[in-house]
């Protein structure tokens, strides 16, 4: 039993969903995503039992490309994030009616397939293919099932597509160049390479372009807010919950170990960029009128911090980054789902048109409150663990990084509570806010439970990821 | 045969043919009447044919002359097709001025 099974299952699921027809599509998709989740948990056990669950096979002889899926702790963690969030996201969409549902859910599963592949691929080209592949489903999801004015949406989505593609194509060039040097794209061979400082710099930058656009790091973030706003909430969840993490994961897995010299030499620049993102994102978020846009900017701030952590090249930085990735994945999905719940009832995303929900639905309010608190990293939530570790690593590099990055806990509290106050509190709203349905409540509860559990007991995840991160660190410090 | 070539020298043949060829080219470039353009193209081809013959003599080798037949045949076929197209154009537009063929552009 190895990881390729997962991908096959997802792919089969995608087709099955499409064939199931509009009526059953959502159920089938949910079934398959749950199956995959279970499957990945089984794999996790196998992995912890020390079995080899990798799958490596020659694919193209000339150029020498292999179909290599390797699962170490890091990959598995991200894989679990993907396979855990996918069913949640699908389940969360049960409240909505989608035209042509079969294609919709098939695309979701296909995207999950591509993203899982990205996290598992251990061959540069394979990785790149999955990376690109994940772009197509989200493109169509955002384009066809998105909301708002069609023309505006089109521009936003096409911009997003071309923007990300542009970035990744330079990564492709970098990969080809690496292939010339290594004669193979297996990640282990790439780690073995010793490139000159200038080569590393160029490769690093080529990768950086791809990742900075995907993550996004300022100033490459302009696609984000609009797409988040225009995409259907499910798409937004996929984007912000998992797809962003592809970029961050790739930084840790590919960029840093392959070009460590550049990473070390220009560490401060990239940390500074990340932190600038934190502050910039938080400040822009302060005065957003659209709830989803506000959340988009908040996530810009958070990923900025994560990126900064990753670029510190310390164990804490990397570990904190990964923890924060997972935590942020859940929180952001929860928050966007909350936005969707409100939208289902008020049919608006404009903050000024909300308010007074608390007196209508205390249940929903408390869940939303918890999510807000988690996203501002209140201790005992999962995000605190990540944020603390990241900030600690920053403080080890330079105390000022920690102070500036730490402003996120002030500014974050500011814009989140401001948002909460205007969305939930105040005089009872005129519009009717039906109490949360069972499905909605269940989704929320699961997310909240995860956040609290790992907030108090992150040990399992830490134990899972630490060895592979240490391994990566040794690669980074190899010369 | 041979001595003539010696007296005159292959270069001159080449120059002659190049000049002929260029005449053809300029004809194609500057004349607007399709028929004349065809003729100019023919001039180009024939210039080449002449050169073929010259070279074949120069090399003492018959292949060149054989090739000339090929090229003449091909040229004939080409012109046949060309004229056919020209006729249908004349039917549809009533002119054979190539400068009027500007419907397809941009």
């Amino acid at each position, binding site marked *: 039993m190895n990881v390729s099974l997962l991908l096959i299952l997802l792919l089969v699921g995608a087709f099955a969903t499409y064939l199931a027809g509009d009526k059953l599509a959502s159920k089938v998709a949910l079934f398959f995503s749950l199956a995959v989740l279970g499957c990945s948990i089984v794999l996790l056990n196998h992995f912890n039992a020390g079995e080899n669950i990798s799958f490596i096979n020659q694919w193209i002889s000339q150029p020498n490309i292999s179909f290599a899926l390797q699962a170490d702790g890091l990959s598995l963690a991200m894989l679990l994030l993907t396979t855990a969030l996918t069913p949640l996201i699908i389940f969360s969409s049960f409240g909505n009616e989608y035209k042509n549902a079969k294609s919709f859910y098939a695309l979701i599963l296909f995207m999950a397939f591509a993203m899982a592949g990205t996290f598992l691929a251990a061959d540069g080209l394979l990785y790149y293919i999955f990376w690109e592949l994940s772009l197509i489903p989200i493109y169509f999801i955002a384009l066809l099932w998105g909301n708002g004015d069609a023309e505006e949406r089109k521009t936003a989505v096409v911009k997003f597509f071309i923007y990300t593609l542009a970035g990744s194509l330079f990564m492709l060039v970098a990969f080809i160049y690496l292939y010339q040097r290594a004669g193979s794209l297996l990640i282990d061979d790439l780690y073995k390479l010793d490139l000159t400082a200038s080569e590393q710099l160029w490769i690093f930058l080529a990768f950086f372009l791809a990742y900075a656009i995907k993550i996004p790091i300022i100033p490459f973030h302009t696609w984000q807010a609009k797409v988040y706003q225009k995409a259907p909430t499910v798409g937004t969840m996929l984007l912000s919950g998992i797809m962003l993490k592809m970029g961050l994961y790739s930084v840790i897995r590919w960029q840093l170990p392959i070009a460590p010299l550049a990473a070390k030499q220009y560490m401060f620049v990239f940390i500074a960029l990340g932190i600038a993102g934190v502050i910039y994102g938080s*400040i*822009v*978020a302060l*005065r957003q009128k659209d709830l989803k846009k506000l959340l988009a900017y908040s996530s810009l701030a958070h990923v900025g911090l994560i990126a900064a952590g990753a670029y510190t090249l310390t*164990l804490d930085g990397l570990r904190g980054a990964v923890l924060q990735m997972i935590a942020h994945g859940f929180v952001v999905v929860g928050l966007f789902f909350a936005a969707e719940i409100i939208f289902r009832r008020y049919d608006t995303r404009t903050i000024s048109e909300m308010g007074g929900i608390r007196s209508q639905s205390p249940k929903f309010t408390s869940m939303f409150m918890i999510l807000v608190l988690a996203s501002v990293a209140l*201790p005992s939530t999962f995000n605190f663990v990540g944020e603390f570790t990241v900030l600690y690593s920053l403080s080890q590099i330079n105390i000022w990084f920690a102070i500036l990055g730490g402003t996120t806990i002030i500014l974050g*509290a500011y814009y989140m509570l401001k948002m909460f106050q205007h969305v939930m509190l105040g005089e009872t709203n005129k519009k009717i806010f039906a109490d949360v349905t069972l499905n909605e409540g269940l989704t929320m509860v699961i997310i909240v439970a995860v956040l609290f559990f790992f907030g108090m007991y992150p040990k399992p995840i830490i134990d899972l990821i630490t060895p592979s991160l240490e391994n990566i660190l040794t690669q980074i410090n190899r010369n | 045969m041979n001595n003539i070539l010696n007296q005159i020298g292959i270069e001159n043949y080449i120059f002659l043919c190049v000049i002929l060829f260029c005449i053809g080219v300029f004809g194609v470039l500057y004349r607007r009447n399709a028929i004349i353009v065809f003729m100019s193209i023919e001039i180009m081809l024939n210039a080449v044919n002449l050169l073929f013959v010259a070279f074949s003599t120069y090399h003492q080798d018959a292949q060149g002359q054989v090739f000339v037949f090929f090229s003449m045949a091909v040229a004939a076929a080409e012109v046949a097709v060309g004229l056919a197209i020209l006729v249908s154009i004349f039917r549809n537009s009533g002119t054979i001025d190539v400068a009027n063929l*500007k419907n397809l552009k941009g």
Partner: protein
Amino acid sequence: MDTNLALVLLLTPLLGFLINVFFGKKLGKTFSGIVGTLSVVVSFAVTLYFFGYITVAKQPIQIILFDWISISNFNLSFGLLLDQLSILWLLFVTGIGSLIHLYSISYMHDDEKMHTFFAYLNLFVFFMITLVIGSNLLVMFIGWEGVGLCSYLLIGFWHKNQEYNDAAKKAFIMNRIGDLGLLIGIFILGMLFSTLDFTTLKTAISGATNLNSYWLGVAAFALFIGACGKSAQIPLYTWLPDAMAGPTPVSALIHAATMVTAGIFMISRLNFLFDLTPEVQNIIAIIGAITALVAATIGLVQNDIKKVLAYSTVSQLGLMFLALGLGAYQVAIFHVVTHAFFKACLFLGSGSVIHALGGEQDMRKMGGLKKAMPITFMTMLVASLAIAGIFPFAGFWSKDEILITAFEHNIVLWVIGSVASIMTAFYMFRLMYLTFFKEFRGTEDQKHHLHESPSLITAPLIILAVLSFIGGLISLPKNSWLNEYLAPIFRKVTEEEHTLGTFEYGLMAIALAGAFIGIGIAYSKYIKQNSVPEEDSKITGISKVLYNKYYVDEAYDVLFVKPINALSGFFRDYIETSISALVFGLAKVTNELSFQGKKLHNGSIGFYLFAFVLGLCAIISYLFLAQ
């Protein structure tokens, strides 16, 4: 055994919280109130057990529950530490906590969200206990932020009023500013000593030979900023007066007795660190003194009964920090305890007044309540005497200790402290006179409804009044039980003991005199001249400045809030758009090129062939040149 008991102590309030959250509505108001109260009472009982244990065994109990976060150079476990300090704190947190819960059952009975209220209170107690008994800085930080959260929830309890929500938000964010400082301090300590556990940290620091005093100082200062945020010191004090938006019991519990003392707790917890950084200690002392004075001055002219109490709280906290800064931790703690008694009493009393007047908080519309509500009056009088520092009430001893310590270190600080306490005496009795003496100034129907509060409200008042009367006994000069008790925690306790000479008696006399002076002024102004503070509009001059709290809020608004929002608008409207314009610009350029190119493909065969020939010639000639 101890572990389980400790867990009971910690988790019963949480249990109460959960019960009230999930079943509160079904339980009904009274019952949910009882549940909430019981859960705290249970923890109080357990605390008493531990108190007995510690006084006998003198050995702190350390409990490791599970591994929590791992950092590269050390592991953080989720552990509890029950030593003299934490148990002392637990005593009055849970003790006063249960009293206030009891009080709230009656006080909040008319509110339809009573169960939520109790849920929040229990949650607060839970987090407060976590804060106090956490065995390392990060567990403490959980409680630290948790109580901040609860205070946010409780200040904004009446969430339909956006002003209250603003106050709540303000409190949370101000606390967060402090929390950042605390975090930075934690980071530095972690880097320096590779541990955040209190006991190991203590041994590490006291054992260490060559300490990096610079970083140590930075850490101490950062931690102090955290304390400022939580304990409402300058410059982060402005949230506390606004926090009075919350229900009165909340003000009593959180914003007077317990949460705001967290900063003092943290500093005394880390006394071994602060002892090594005298500069920071000086800063603390000075900040404390200034805060005491400033807050007191503002308190002089406030007309909202709770505002007065709030500012007096800030000022008292200032005095405690003064003591901390002078290294007299046990003195500060002494004042914390006594202050907890009488300030809780005062708040609850004011609560009962407000309750009686149907929510009226303006003292100008009160008066003459003495006859109507004698118990409230008596208890509040005791408490006021205590806070004013009248012999032999609790406040007298603790405040006097502080002043003596101040005098020993620095005369100026002593002067400031004394002035502050004179003012305290003044505004407290201003409050008393305006509220209880003379005739009633409120509306008619209020007058009709005037009544003494039910026993559930008065009982806690009485208990607290008694405590604020006898509270001083725990640390009398010469034979101070408190100092004995805390001896294991602090290093220099013994040197801090001062001999009772005539000189000390003199200081006591001066302090006492000052207190009487304050009361006297108040008496002459509000009883003799029978004057009532005039309308807000008529207030002028210095008192206007004071009445408007030195315009500090406005200043902050102009200095921080407005600029950030302006910046946000600027980013949103200009930077964002211009960046994306840059991206779109590239697309536009290519499109324009394409447009120009269309003209080139003009459909003319002549031109096409011309281009053909041109290309041909170019290539041929290039080849020639290349030859």
